[in-house]
Every structure is written in C-alpha cells, then in structure tokens.
C-alpha cells in the first residue's frame, strides 16, 4: 500500500512538473461535462464513503449523499473516483477528478496547496486512553513524551507534533487495537472515527476533545469559480436544512454542526489561518532520512539473520527429516511464499496481539524474517541438491553420521552455491522492509511519505529516498557479482 502510494507520488511529482493546466475554468468544465468527479477512498470506511455489503456493494455514506446534493445544486451528476487516501491531493492536482472530498482535514500544509470550500463537517479531535490510565488528561501538555497513535499526516498528528511521540497508522481500527494492547498510551483522532472504532472498546475511555477541525472540499487553486459555486451550494443546502438532514440520517450530527449553518467570512479566515508555505527541505530532513535508512538497514539485517538459520533448518528438515516433519517444513514454505507478507505482518502484529504482544520492531523483524526464511529454505534446498551425491556418499562411507556429513561436507558447499541468491534476497528484503510501516515502524519509505507531505512535494524526498536505497543495495549487488564471478572460476 505504502509502496504503491510512493510510486504514485513519484509519478505524480514528475507529471505535475510538466503541469497539465486546464485551459477552461473549473466550473465551465464541470458544467460542460455534466459530471462532477469527486475523489475519495472507499477504504476510509463507514460513515464517509463505503460499500454497502447489504446492497450489493453500492456506494453509500454521508459524503456520497453530500456529493449528490452538491452536484444537483450545480446542475450536474456526481461521479465517484477511487483514489488512495494519502494520494488524494496529488491526484486532484493531476486532474483525475475535480474535487477531493473524503474527510480531507483543513491543515496549514494543505491550505498552502489547494483551495478549500466552507466546511461540510466540524469534528473534534478526540483523545482516548485506557480506562485504568489516569495519567492522560484532556490537555495537549499531558501527552508530552507519551506514545500517541494517530493517522499519518492528519490534523491530529499536526497537533501532536513536537509534543508527543507520534505513532503513525494507515488504518482507523489499528490505533485502538494497539491502545488496548498497551503499545501506545493514547489515541488522538477525529471524533467520527473515535465514536465508531474506539468507543465501542470497553477497555478504553474518552478523555476529551482537544480542538475542533474541519472537513472541507479541496479544489485545485486555478478552479476559483468552482470553489465559489460549491460554497454557494453548501450555503444553500445548509439553509434549506438538507445538510442537517443528511448528517442526521448518517448519525454524525451533533451540536458542533450548528456553526456550519451560520458560517461567516470571519469563520473562514480563522479556519484557513495562515497558510503554511511548507517547510524547506533541509538538513533536518536529511538527518531524519538517515535515521530512517538506519532503521531500514537494521531491520533488514536482523530479519536476514533470522531468515538464514531458520531457512537452513527448513531446507534440511524438508530434505532429510522424518516424513511428517518434512511435510510440515514444506507446508511452512508454501504458506509463507503463497500469502502476502503484508497480511503476515498484520496477523503477527494485530491478529496475535491478544496472545503474544510484540512491539512493532520485534514484530517487523520476526514477520520479515519468517517470510524470508521460506525463500531462503528454497535457495538452500537448491544449493544442497546441486552438491553432487558422491560428496554425501563419501562422507557416509567414512563413518560420518548424517548430521555430521551435512554439517562438514554438504552444507559448506551448498552455502557457497547459495551466497549469490542470498545476497539478492537481502537486496529485495531491503526494499520489502518498507511494508512494515503498516505496523507503525517509521523506516526510510515512511519517512519519505511523511516528509513529502510536510514540504508539499514528492520529487526531492522521493529522489533522496531512492538514492539512499540505492546506496545500500548497490554495494551488495557488486559484492554478489564478484562472488558469483569467483565461484564461476573455481
């Protein structure tokens, strides 16, 4: 998921450099097409935009109702376009859809990048903690130094920046699972999310709401007239009571929303605040990237250190073990090779949490290591089988036991044959390690996506990130080539 948005981001960065500026005004374009294309992510879940499983996967949610109402006000039809949530803004800039509307929070970074309409929803950032943990108070300062879970690049994460240790998540369920497990001290997220995913958990309590934030429709900066038309449309459905009806029907109405009905130009100025021009990409980012690279390297090295002996055990068991164990080793290899490592990480970290509560880094090492062990097992199996049979026969005929013959004669030779493949696997592992960001580990790729949002550009962080991966993998690749050449000679 992360890697995809990384690639998408890079591609977008390149595309946006060449600028695909619409020649028509935004409103005229929408009217001419007769369609208002709006971008969102179905994965955001209930109640925003989601598939109604009871009605054949039809799209539903309060933003769907809203999009239909606003399109009607503009005299056009609404059309949903699926996009990864974290790539909504770059995808909007690229022109894939006319507006982005999917719980897009108004943050200083985004204000500097897109136009925002008046809000269609006001949320509170809700702080939740474990029921028995009284250290957490409804103030931002009580979070100083604590581990607090939130969504990456969210309004809440902005509030926490520089105060708490931010544990970034990609999904809305996982922060609360980890809070229950004690992996974090608190979770700060939009009240809509907290109500649905956090509050049902009996182990957790609501500490309080820290600040108000706004969901607003993002429009490209050049589409000023479209933004104004949408502002008027929102004003009309507010005045007519339709907005309230929509929000009530989806159970997201509360007293906070009354401000939507009396929205003024002053409110607007306060909401937008001072647009952040974005941080400059500087040394502090390079240092963060270097830290990310160290995490990536360390994770990969430890995972490989686990995968090698485990893979060796699996290969030997599969080839020489008793039938039952041999089958078991074979099943392990097929299971781990045949399922996505992302899923394995999820199961290990979240699924097994009630039984074994692993911290993120050990879980990442274990998950990657166990996955790669399956690949290593196959590499060693091929290596062992490539050692001529006569070597084993000679060893046995000298009175060696099978384990001794393996250890002294067959495996040392198999290892030499396997080294190039093992090195290649390690290079692949370096890059696969970016998947562990789903279990909150901030490694190189995650650092890149975080920075890209901070400085509002993918190109530079993307290039630096790519360079760092390259600097780590290229020497290994050279080493593998040299080894291979040396083996070919002997």
């Amino acid at each position, binding site marked *: 998921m992360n890697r995809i948005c990384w690639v998408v981001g890079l591609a977008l960065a390149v595309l946006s450099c060449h600028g695909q500026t619409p020649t028509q005004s935004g409103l005229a374009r929408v009217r001419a097409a007769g369609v208002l294309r709006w971008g969102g992510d179905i994965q955001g879940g209930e109640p925003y935009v989601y598939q109604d499983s009871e009605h054949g996967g039809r799209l539903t949610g309060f933003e769907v109702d809203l999009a239909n109402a606003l399109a009607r006000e503009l005299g056009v039809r609404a059309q949903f376009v699926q996009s990864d949530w974290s790539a909504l803004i770059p995808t909007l800039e690229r022109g894939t859809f006319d507006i982005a509307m999917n719980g897009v929070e108004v943050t200083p970074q985004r204000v500097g990048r897109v136009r925002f309409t008046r809000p269609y929803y006001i949320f509170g950032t809700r702080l939740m903690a474990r029921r028995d943990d009284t250290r957490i108070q409804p103030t931002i300062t009580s979070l100083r130094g604590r581990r607090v879970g939130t969504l990456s690049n969210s309004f809440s994460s902005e509030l926490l920046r520089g105060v708490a240790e931010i544990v970034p998540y990609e999904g809305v369920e996982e922060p609360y699972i980890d809070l229950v497990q004690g992996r974090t001290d608190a979770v700060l997220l939009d009240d809509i999310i907290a109500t649905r995913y956090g509050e049902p958990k009996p182990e957790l309590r609501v500490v309080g709401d820290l600040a108000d934030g706004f969901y607003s429709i993002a429009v490209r900066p050049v589409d000023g007239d479209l933004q104004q038309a949408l502002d008027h449309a929102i004003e009309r459905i507010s005045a007519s009571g339709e907005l309230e009806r929509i929000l009530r029907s989806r159970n997201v109405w509360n007293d906070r929303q009354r401000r939507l009905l009396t929205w003024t130009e002053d409110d607007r100025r306060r909401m937008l605040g001072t647009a952040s021009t974005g941080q400059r990409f500087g040394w502090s980012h390079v240092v963060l990237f270097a830290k990310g690279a160290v995490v990536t390297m360390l994770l990969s090295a430890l995972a490989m250190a686990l995968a090698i002996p485990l893979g060796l055990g699996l290969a030997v068991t599969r080839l020489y073990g008793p039938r039952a164990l041999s089958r078991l080793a074979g099943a392990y290899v097929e299971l781990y090779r045949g399922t996505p490592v992302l899923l394995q990480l999820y199961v290990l970290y979240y699924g097994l949490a009630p039984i074994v509560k692993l911290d993120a880094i050990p879980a990442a090492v274990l998950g990657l290591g166990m996955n790669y062990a399956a690949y290593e097992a196959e590499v060693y199996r091929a290596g062992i089988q490539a050692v*001529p049979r*006569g*070597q084993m*026969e*000679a*060893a*046995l*005929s*000298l*009175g*060696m*036991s099978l384990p*001794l013959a393996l250890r*002294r*004669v067959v495996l*040392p*030779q198999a290892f*030499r044959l396997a080294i190039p493949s093992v090195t290649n696997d390690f290079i692949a592992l370096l890059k696969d390690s970016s998947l562990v960001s789903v279990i909150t580990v901030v490694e190189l790729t995650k650092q890149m996506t975080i920075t890209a949002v901070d400085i509002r550009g993918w190109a530079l962080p993307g290039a630096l990130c790519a360079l760092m991966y390259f600097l780590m993998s290229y020497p290994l690749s050279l080493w593998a080539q040299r080894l291979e050449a040396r083996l070919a000679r*002997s």
Partner: protein
Amino acid sequence: MIEVHELRKIYGERTVLGGITASFAKGQVVALVGPSGGGKSTLLRCLNGLESFDGGQVTLGGDVLLPGGAKINRAALQRVRQRVGMVFQQWNLFAHRTALGNVIEAPVHVKGIPLAQATERGRALLARVGLSHREGAYPHEMSGGEQQRVAIARALAMDPEALLLDEPTSALDPERVGEVLDVLGALAADGLTMLVVTHEMRFAREVSHRTLVLHGGQIIEEGPSKQVIDDPKHERTRAFLGLDRK
C-alpha cells in the same frame, strides 16, 4: 571377515542381485569382474550400506546388516563404515577441502583424533601414495590420478580393516591408471583386505588372490584369479574375457 548370505536386491521387475552368497577372508584381495549391469558395484555398495537390499544379510566382524536400509541398520552401519573404507570411481573428494584436509576430516571429526596427530598421520599417508608435494592442493587443481590417490589415503586414514574399491581406475586417463594400480599393488603386498570391482584384467590376475565373476546378479564363476582369468570354465566368462574370439 565379510560374509554375504543369500543377498537379494530387486529394482522393480529387475533382479539386480539374485541371492548371492560369498565370503571374504582377512588379508585377501578379491576382484569382482563381469559385464556392466552384472551387479558388481551394487554388491560392493551393499556391503557398507550405500545401497539397501531386499533379502539376505551381510555380516562384517560382529555387525549384521539386514534388509531395510539406513533406518534399520543405523547403529551397525556407522560401525561398519568406520571399519570398511570405500574408494569411488569418481573419487568424490570433498571439493572444499585440500588434499590434506580430505585425509584428516574423518579422523578428526569421526574418531576425535587431535588435529596435530591426525595431520602428522595424514602427511605420512600422502607420502605413502606419493603426494607429499600436493597436500595443499584442492581437488579441482589435481589430475584424476592424483585425486584417486588422495581418495585412497583418505580411506586409509580411518585405519580400515578392509577397503572396498568401486572401479577405481575406470574414470582415469589411460596414462594415469598405472600410478593408482601401483599404490593398490603396494597395499595388497602389505596384506590389506581389499574387494575391487575392476575391468583391469591384468591387475586382477596379478594382484588379486581370488576373482568372482558376476553376471545377471549371480556369481557364475569363482576361483583363484590366475585360473579364472586364464582358463575360465563358464562360457559367459569366456565371452566376457574375449577368449573365444580368435
């Protein structure tokens, strides 16, 4: 010291060994000859358990090997293999060890002989096969003849009571055969018990005491080597030795 009783081995439909009974005395050099596919190598490999068999038994000293392979015979096999050395057609030297490393591997790791002592003895054995100057060479750096002599030294390093040799000269260049046969002749003169599967009739005739002719999984003829090779009784032996073609 080696007794084979009613040894049978079957591959699917094919009977490889059809109930072989034979006995090999201490100090004897016995040649196993016969056409390809006659069962010579299989018989040899059954004696130290590299092949399993389907019927009969093999007795070496006090140890008995039964049908069923490594699972049944594990303990006996390990003792037998430490007492009976084997030399292969393709040498099978450990590719990642030097000549000396090959020779001392088993004494150090199977018998637990201290490294210094094993090294000293290993050097003596290499000298005995005329390869003192090659102790640091890896297998791929040596000729076939040199490798086979190292393989013989490696087998001798375990102080075996007998040596099984499976076509020790078949894979060698013709000009290298002599150096290996010289070594084997010297070992025979020293009184080492040897069973040699061979196509070298001159070697069989001059060095071995007894010759067994195997054909179709049966011993079709046996006796003192000179007698069997110079004047075989069985027509198939005569055909195999090319005596009827004039």
